[in-house]
C-alpha cells in the first residue's frame, strides 16, 4: 500500500475529519507514518473549530486593535482597558464560544460544559470571572419538532442553572430566540467576562524565562477519562444521527468551584514569589493541545510523560489520554523549583484528592530548548514532531456564491394596535423571558445593579468601592439573517450596542460568534462573508469611546456545520456581545416609566422597512423583505445623544426600539413599572400608521421631565416628542387605548406554560 492509501485507511478507521492532503502534510512534518497520537492531535489542531482554516482570511476584515485593546483575538480570551481604581489599572477579559452541537445532543451537559469552557478561558488569563451570558437559539416549540425543541430548551436552561449557579458566576442575561431554522440544530453561545489587574495578566504559554531555567508542566484538576475524545472534530462536522455523542463531556461545577479557588491561591503565590509562568485551560484536544501549544508559543519543546497523568479509567490508549477532553483541567508552566509548593496548594490546602477521587495536581512534562514535541507512554515514544508545525496553521480558500433573497413585501398592512400588541406580547419572541431568567442566579458576588429584563443591558459594579459600572448585552436576529446576512451582521452589533447605550454604557469592545451552516457550500460561505462584512462595517462606524477609532472585536468564535442531516443550514446567525463602561453606575438607566407627566422622547426616525419584523411575523404571518437599513452615522449620533442625556442626569428611563417597534417599546416600559405605581403612555401618533408604530428602524425612547426638555438648548433633528407618561396602566393614542393589566399574565407566563408545563398552544 502506498503512503496515501495508508493515510486514507487511518482517516477512515479512526474516524478522523482530517483531509487526505492534511494527513500527507502531517506525514511530511514527522518524516514517517504518523503515530495515532499525532494523528489525533493534528486532527484537532487542524479542525475548523481550532484552526479557523476556512474563516481566518475573512476574519481579518474585523477591527481587532485600538488604543484600548490590551490583547486581541489569539489567546483564550481578549483583554481591553476598563478602569482605574486606587492607582491600579483594571482590564476587562472577555471570551465568546459556541457549544451548539453538544447541546443539541445532550442539552444539559452541552450547555453546562459550554459555560465551563468559556469560564476557564477567562480564568486562565489570571482574571476573576464576573459574569456570563447565554445566547440561545431554539427551534419552534410549537412546530413539527416541537417536542424535541421544548425538551432541548428545558435541558439547556437546566444545564445553565445547575452549572452556572453553582460556579458563583452571575448570569448577566443574553437573549433567547425561536426560529424553525433551529429545529434540528439549536445554538448555545456563551460569553464570559472577567476582570484582571493589568500587572496580573497571565499568558497561555511558557514564559521566556523557561529558556534560562528548568520549567515543568503541572496538570491540575479532574483525573483524565475518555470523555470528549474527538470533541473538536465533533464540533466541526455535520450533526448526523445520535450515535456521535459519546464525545460530550461531563461537567463538574463543584470541582470547578474548588479548583478556581485553588487556582486563585496558586496565582497569588506565584505573583508573590515573583516567578514568571504560563497558564492555560484544557479544552479541545486536551493534554496534547495544551502541552504542545504552551511549549510551541513559548518557542520551546516539551517532553510529556503520559504515565504520570492521573486517569480514572484503566487501560486507555495513549492517544485517548492525550486527546480526551475531560472537563475541569488546567495546565501550568512553572519553574521546577516551585513545583512542589504549587502542587501542595492544590493537593493539601484545597484537598482536591479528598473532594474528588483522583483529582489533584501532578507534574507531567519538562520543557526543553530542543524544539520538538515528544510524548512518552509505557516506555515508548508515542509522538515526536517539530514544534514549528504546531504553530503553523492551515488555511483554505473557500468558494463563495452570492445568494441574495429577493425582497417580497406584504400586499396589505392592516393596523389594529390593540390586537397587534396582544399578538406581539404573546408571541414566542415577544413574550417575557422571565421564566428563563427565574432559573438563573444573576446576583451572586453581590455586584449586580440591573438584572436581566430590568434594563436593556445587565449592569454590574464589579470593583467594590469603584464607581465604574459595566453594561453587557448580546444579540443577533435570525429573521434578519435569513433575509439579509449582511445587515444581520451589522444589526447584531447595532442592537447589542443600543442596549448597552440605553443602559448608560459607552461601548468599549465587542465579541462575536459566527454561526453558519457548512462552509463548503458556496452560498453558506457567502452568508458567512456577508456577516463578517456587516460586523466590520458596524464596528467601523460605531466607535465612540475613542473618537475616530472603531469598536474593536477582541475575541470571538466561528461555528460552522450548523445544519441538519437533511442539509438545511440554520439561518445565518452572527451573534454579538457588546461591553460598555458606565462611568458612574448610579446613573445607569433601567427601562421602567417613572413619573406621570414626564415626556417620552423618540430618538431616531421611523422608516418603512419592516422586513423580518415582529409585526409582519405575528400580525400578517409574513416575513417581508426589506430589513432595516444600517445607518452608521445616525446610529452613532443617537448613541451620543442618549449618553449625554443619561450622564447629565436628564434621562429617567431609556429603552431601545427593536422587535415590535415603538408600540412594543412603550408597552415594555409600562410593563416594567412598579406594581404599586403603574405607569403607561399616551402616544401622540399617528395612531394608525404601521410604519410609525411597528417599524424596527433603530431608535430609542427616553423619559425626561418637561422642564429638562425645555432646558435642552440643542436638540438633534432626529429627536421628537413621542408622547407622555401617565399614571394609567395603559398605552393609548388617538382613537384607541390598550389596558395592559389583562395582558400581563400571558406575556410573562407564555414560555413557562408552553415549554415547562407542556400545556400547549393557547
Amino acid at each position, binding site marked *: 500500500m502506498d503512503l496515501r492509501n495508508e493515510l486514507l485507511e487511518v482517516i477512515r478507521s479512526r474516524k478522523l475529519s482530517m483531509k487526505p492532503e492534511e494527513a500527507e502534510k502531517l506525514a511530511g512534518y514527522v518524516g514517517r507514518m504518523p503515530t495515532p497520537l499525532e494523528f489525533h492531535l493534528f486532527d484537532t489542531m487542524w479542525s475548523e473549530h481550532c484552526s479557523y482554516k476556512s474563516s481566518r482570511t475573512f476574519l481579518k476584515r474585523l477591527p481587532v486593535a485600538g488604543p484600548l485593546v490590551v490583547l486581541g483575538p489569539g489567546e483564550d480570551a481578549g483583554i481591553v482597558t476598563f478602569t482605574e481604581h486606587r492607582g491600579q489599572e483594571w482590564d476587562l477579559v472577555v471570551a465568546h464560544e459556541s457549544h451548539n452541537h453538544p447541546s443539541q445532543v*445532550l442539552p*444539559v451537559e452541552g450547555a453546562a460544559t459550554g459555560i465551563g469552557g468559556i469560564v476557564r478561558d477567562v480564568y486562565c488569563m489570571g482574571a476573576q470571572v464576573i459574569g456570563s451570558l447565554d445566547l440561545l437559539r431554539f427551534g419552534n416549540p410549537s412546530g413539527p419538532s416541537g417536542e424535541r425543541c421544548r425538551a432541548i430548551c*428545558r435541558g439547556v436552561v437546566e444545564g445553565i442553572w445547575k452549572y452556572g449557579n453553582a460556579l458563583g458566576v452571575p448570569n448577566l442575561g443574553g437573549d433567547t430566540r425561536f426560529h424553525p431554522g433551529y429545529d434540528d440544530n439549536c445554538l448555545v453561545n456563551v460569553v464570559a467576562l472577567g476582570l484582571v489587574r493589568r500587572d496580573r495578566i497571565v499568558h497561555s504559554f511558557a514564559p521566556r524565562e523557561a529558556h534560562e531555567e528548568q520549567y515543568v508542566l503541572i496538570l491540575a484538576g479532574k483525573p483524565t477519562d475518555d470523555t470528549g475524545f474527538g470533541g473538536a472534530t465533533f464540533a466541526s462536522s455535520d450533526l448526523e444521527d*445520535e450515535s456521535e*455523542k459519546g464525545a460530550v463531556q461531563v461537567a463538574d461545577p*463543584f470541582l470547578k468551584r474548588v479548583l478556581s479557588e485553588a487556582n486563585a491561591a496558586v496565582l497569588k503565590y506565584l505573583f508573590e514569589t515573583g516567578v514568571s509562568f504560563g497558564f492555560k485551560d484544557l479544552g479541545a484536544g486536551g493534554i496534547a493541545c495544551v502541552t504542545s501549544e504552551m511549549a510551541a508559543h513559548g518557542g520551546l519543546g516539551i517532553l510529556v510523560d503520559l504515565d504520570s497523568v492521573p486517569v480514572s479509567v484503566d487501560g486507555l490508549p495513549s492517544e485517548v489520554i492525550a486527546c480526551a477532553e475531560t472537563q475541569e483541567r488546567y495546565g501550568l508552566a512553572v519553574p521546577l523549583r516551585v513545583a512542589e509548593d504549587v502542587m501542595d496548594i492544590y493537593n493539601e490546602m484545597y484537598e482536591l484528592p479528598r473532594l474528588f477521587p483522583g483529582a489533584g495536581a501532578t507534574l507531567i512534562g519538562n520543557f526543553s530548548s530542543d524544539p520538538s514535541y515528544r510524548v512518552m507512554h509505557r516506555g515508548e515514544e508515542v509522538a515526536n514532531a517539530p514544534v514549528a508545525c504546531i504553530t503553523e496553521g492551515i488555511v483554505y480558500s473557500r468558494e463563495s456564491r452570492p445568494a441574495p433573497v429577493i425582497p417580497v413585501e406584504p400586499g396589505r398592512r392592516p393596523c389594529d394596535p390593540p390586537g397587534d400588541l396582544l399578538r406581539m406580547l404573546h408571541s414566542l419572541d415577544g413574550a417575557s423571558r422571565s421564566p428563563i431568567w427565574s432559573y438563573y442566579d444573576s446576583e451572586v458576588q453581590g455586584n449586580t445593579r440591573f438584572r436581566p429584563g430590568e434594563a436593556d443591558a445587565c449592569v454590574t459594579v464589579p470593583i467594590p468601592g469603584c464607581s465604574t459600572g459595566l453594561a453587557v448585552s448580546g444579540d443577533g436576529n435570525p429573521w434578519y439573517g435569513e433575509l439579509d446576512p449582511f445587515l444581520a451582521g451589522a444589526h447584531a452589533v447595532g442592537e447589542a450596542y443600543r442596549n448597552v447605550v440605553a443602559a448608560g454604557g459607552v461601548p468599549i469592545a465587542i465579541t462575536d460568534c459566527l454561526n453558519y451552516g457548512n462552509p463548503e457550500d458556496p452560498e453558506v460561505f457567502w452568508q458567512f462573508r456577508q456577516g463578517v462584512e456587516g460586523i466590520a462595517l458596524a464596528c467601523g462606524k460605531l466607535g465612540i469611546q475613542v473618537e475616530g477609532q472603531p469598536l474593536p472585536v477582541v475575541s470571538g468564535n466561528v461555528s460552522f456545520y450548523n445544519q441538519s442531516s437533511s442539509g438545511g443550514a440554520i439561518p445565518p446567525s452572527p451573534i454579538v456581545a457588546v461591553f460598555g463602561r458606565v462611568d458612574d453606575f448610579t446613573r445607569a438607566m433601567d427601562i421602567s416609566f417613572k413619573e406621570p407627566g414626564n415626556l417620552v422622547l423618540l430618538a431616531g426616525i421611523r422608516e418603512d422597512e419592516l422586513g423580518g419584523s415582529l409585526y409582519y411575523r405575528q400580525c400578517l404571518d409574513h416575513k417581508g423583505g426589506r430589513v432595516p437599513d444600517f445607518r452608521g452615522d445616525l446610529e452613532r449620533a443617537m448613541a451620543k445623544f442618549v449618553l449625554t442625556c443619561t450622564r447629565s442626569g436628564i434621562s429617567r428611563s431609556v429603552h431601545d426600539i427593536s422587535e415590535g417597534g415603538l408600540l412594543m417599546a412603550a408597552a415594555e416600559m409600562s410593563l416594567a413599572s412598579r406594581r404599586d405605581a403603574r405607569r403607561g403612555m399616551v402616544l401622540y401618533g399617528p395612531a394608525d400608521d404601521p410604519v410609525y408604530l411597528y417599524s424596527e428602524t433603530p431608535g430609542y425612547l427616553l423619559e425626561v421631565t418637561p422642564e429638562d426638555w425645555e432646558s435642552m438648548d440643542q436638540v438633534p433633528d432626529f429627536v421628537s416628542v413621542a408622547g407622555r407618561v401617565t399614571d394609567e396602566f395603559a398605552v393609548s393614542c388617538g382613537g384607541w387605548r390598550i389596558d395592559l393589566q389583562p395582558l400581563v399574565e400571558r406575556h410573562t407566563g407564555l414560555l413557562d406554560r408552553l415549554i415547562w*408545563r*407542556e400545556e400547549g398552544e393557547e
Partner: protein
Amino acid sequence: MSETSILVGLKAPDPAAMTALSTLMRISPETAPLHLSRYDHWRFTGPGAVREFVSELVSHYTDIVNPNKQTWSFFEGETDPILTDPGMTWAAVLVTDRVDSISENWTGILGRRHRGVESVGYSVLWRLGFSRSVSLEDARDRTMTMAVTTHRDRGLLANPVSQLIELLGTSKT
C-alpha cells in the same frame, strides 16, 4: 390498574454516589458499604401503565431518560437482578419526598397527554453493597442507620422530616 417502575442510572460514575460513599466512610467507617450506587426511580401508575407503554414514554421524554448519558431498566423491586447480584450482600432504600413538584409536574404533563397514566412518582434509589460476610439482617440494619438522618453525625441518605424512606428487602445468592 397497572404499575410499572423503572430505574435510571448514569453511564458515567455518579458524582453524588461517590460523595455519599466517601462521606459514609468518614462518619461511619465501621458500617459503611463497599459499594454505593444511585438511581432515579420512576413509578408510573394507571390503567395503561404497562411495560410497553412505559417503554414508549421513556423513549419519548429525554428529560426522564436521555440515552446519551443514562441507561434504564424496569425495576422489579426486591427480586430485581441488581439486588440479587452475586458477590455482595445488597440492600437498597427508596427515598421519596413527601411533597414533590417533580412527581406532580410529570403527573400533570403525562396525564394531559397520555390517557392511561394517572400518576407519576419520582424517588431516588440508593443501592448499598456489603461484603458477603455481612448478614442480610446486618446489611438491612446498617442501611437504615446510614439512610435515616437523625443527628449531625448519624445518617445521611435521607431526611425523614421531609422524606419517606422505604427499605427494600435484601437478598443474597
